């Protein structure tokens, strides 16, 4: 089967390019160009230009740089520090202490942002300096961020659920509602893991025990008010009907600027630094997204993902075996393509199989999002890994290793929703 050789050859190309240190975006472009030039007659250069343009001028994507900018502003203001000193009295008695701020912070921010990269960039920018200053272990700090930032995709709003809903004609409102309980389940799993880890690794965590009077606790908690104001302002603008979830990102930027001005942190320099920082980070992500979009189209031309999916279909598996096979398939593809591309490239082959096996397409949407979440933290192509690499300067394998336990937890969550599908379907069926 020549497709197998082709696939192996393309994977080798990707590994050589990435491994030798070629920038991620260029590596993706390179594999796409190579694949298309070797195995299709289509004009590579024109397809590349068209795809890159088409994937970069999207309105929905505009939320990404805005959220990143919001993170930059908060990072330069007192707000992120205030948030941590306000929360520390409350999480001080829970094993794992401030690490939970990463998880909860990502969970809350996920209710605002539809992408995991924006969630990782915004929360990470605020929490990494604060946590490393307090001596929290690096691996867990990066791991909790990488893992919980994926919640951006599951907790509504969510870009990937919109893509899935449009491609499979499922109600987007129902998909959003369906994501709520699994999202909370994941938050609980992540918190549980950190608690257990902390109980077994007491020596690795900072053991500062602050003895605070009740009054001091209240005083500290008051410093959370600006952050609460910011979050409710952003979410409120959506539910008041004055901003779409994309627009809400701009509301976030303006409120962050306002708060940072009120607390005296906003100067001309800090404004410019924040803006330039956001420009660079979003440029980095946008360029990789463009590379990923081109690789996706190149794969569409070569037809490899469809052939692999067809092959799975030809095995005529039972529903559980099919889900197991699809999980392996998605995880493997998810290592090399970004999650949304996997959905776009394969739904038209996979959905008939899934429906024939009697699997509820609404439930399958949530299943696919969790699988895509896993792909965000698997090397070599994992967007959360890229964001955290850029924030910490650690290499991608170190970041991926830190995220590994959370990959396992996502896999575990998949098992739970397969065993208890009502966790997904209860809310949408009773809406």
């Amino acid at each position: 089967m020549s497709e197998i050789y082709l696939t192996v050859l393309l994977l080798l190309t990707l590994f050589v390019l990435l491994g030798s240190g070629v920038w991620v975006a260029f590596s993706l472009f390179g594999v796409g160009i190579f694949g298309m030039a070797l195995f299709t007659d289509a004009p590579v250069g024109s397809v590349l230009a068209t795809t890159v343009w088409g994937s970069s001028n999207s309105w929905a994507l505009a939320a990404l740089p805005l959220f990143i900018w919001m993170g930059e502003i908060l990072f330069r203001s007192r707000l992120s520090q205030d948030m941590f000193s306000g929360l520390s009295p409350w999480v001080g008695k829970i094993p794992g202490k401030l690490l939970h701020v990463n998880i909860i912070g990502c969970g809350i921010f996920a209710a605002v942002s539809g992408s995991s990269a924006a969630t990782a960039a915004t929360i990470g920018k605020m929490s990494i300096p604060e946590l490393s200053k307090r001596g929290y272990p690096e691996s867990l700090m990066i791991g909790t961020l990488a893992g919980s930032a994926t919640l951006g995709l599951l907790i509504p709003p969510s870009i990937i659920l919109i893509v899935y809903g449009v491609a499979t004609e499922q109600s987007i409102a129902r998909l959003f509602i369906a994501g709520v309980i699994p999202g909370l389940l994941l938050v609980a799993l992540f918190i549980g893991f950190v608690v257990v880890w902390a109980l077994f690794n007491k020596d690795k965590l900072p053991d500062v025990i602050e003895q605070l009077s009740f009054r001091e606790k209240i005083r500290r908690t008051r410093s959370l008010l600006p952050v609460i104001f910011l979050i409710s302002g952003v979410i409120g603008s959506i539910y008041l009907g004055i901003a779409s979830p994309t627009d809400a990102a701009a509301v976030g930027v303006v409120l962050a600027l306002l708060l940072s001005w009120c607390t005296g942190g906003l100067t001309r320099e800090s404004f410019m630094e924040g803006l330039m920082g956001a420009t660079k980070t979003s440029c980095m992500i946008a360029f990789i997204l463009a590379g990923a979009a081109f690789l996706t189209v190149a794969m569409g031309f070569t037809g490899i993902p469809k052939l692999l999916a067809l092959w799975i279909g030809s095995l005529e598996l039972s529903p559980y075996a099919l889900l197991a096979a699809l999980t392996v398939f998605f995880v493997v593809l998810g290592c090399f393509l970004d999650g949304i591309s996997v959905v776009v490239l394969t739904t038209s082959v996979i959905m008939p199989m899934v429906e024939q096996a009697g699997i509820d397409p609404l439930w399958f949407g949530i299943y696919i999002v969790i699988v895509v979440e896993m792909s965000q933290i698997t090397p070599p192509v994992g967007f959360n890994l890229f964001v955290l690499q850029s924030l910490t300067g650690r290499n991608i394998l170190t970041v991926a290793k830190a995220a590994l336990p959370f990959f396992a937890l996502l896999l575990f969550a998949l098992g739970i929703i397969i065993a208890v599908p009502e966790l997904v379907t209860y809310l949408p069926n009773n809406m």
Partner: protein
Amino acid sequence: DTWDMPTPYPDKTFHTENIIEFAKDVETATNGALTIKVHSAGSLFKHPEIKNAVRSGQVPVGEFFLSLLSNEHEAFGADSLPFLATNYDDAERLWAAQKPVITKLLDKQGLMPLYSVPWPPQGLYTNKEINSVADLKGLKFRAYNATLEKFAQLTGAAPTQVEVPDIPQAYTTGRVEAMITSPSTGANSKAWDFVSHYTHIQAWVPKNIVVINKSAWRKLDEATQAAVLDAAQKAEQRGWAMSKAETDAQIQVMQDNGVTIVNPPSEQLVQDLKAVGAEMLKDWKTAAGSEGEEILSAYGN
């Protein structure tokens, strides 16, 4: 030969189902000499890129929503003019009148139309009963092009811009209160989650079109060309029939899910809307120039 064919809509949309049939017909008729690989749901090129991708030969054939090109020339948007052609018979006559004109226009870009299939007639989605144009006044109305913006202004509605995936949430939060689209789109997006009333005003009957790159076309031998044309003609006939069946079926689906169906709409509303349509046609005539005249005189209006 294998042809890659990008289409914008998902597999279950009847347009895509029809195209998959078309691809099979071509393959059978040519004994596999020409196979068409359909890439649905914008998985190869996104909707706004499809026409240009065909033009520059990145793919030999593709499908898109015809009036998407109405900014390029008004003639492309004739089928999306409110209350010019409001049922399938009129739409068929309009397509016959429109086809020679857009064939010429597309030819300038090295494109050739293969066939065109309409969406079901467009209805009105609201959360209250609409009995006259006065009921639309001050409602936030979804406008995604210049024609609809004008339409909103003439009816006294407030034009607002909402992207397709954002529609359900925009209705729930009140960013949009009225939109015009086909029963297919309404049923597929489960409109009962966010609207209470569907008024079957049959405002217009817009079409999708399948176009082919002419230099790719010239590379086919005569027998293959004939097979493609034959399959295209069959696809057009089948598509129109599918569209008609779709209208009733999808209105029924919405009714079964609790949407109040207003069909036929009130006399007053129809009268008011026709007046708006006449007003818009005047503007369109000026903008569409000689091509517009050609279409209208052939249409007999």
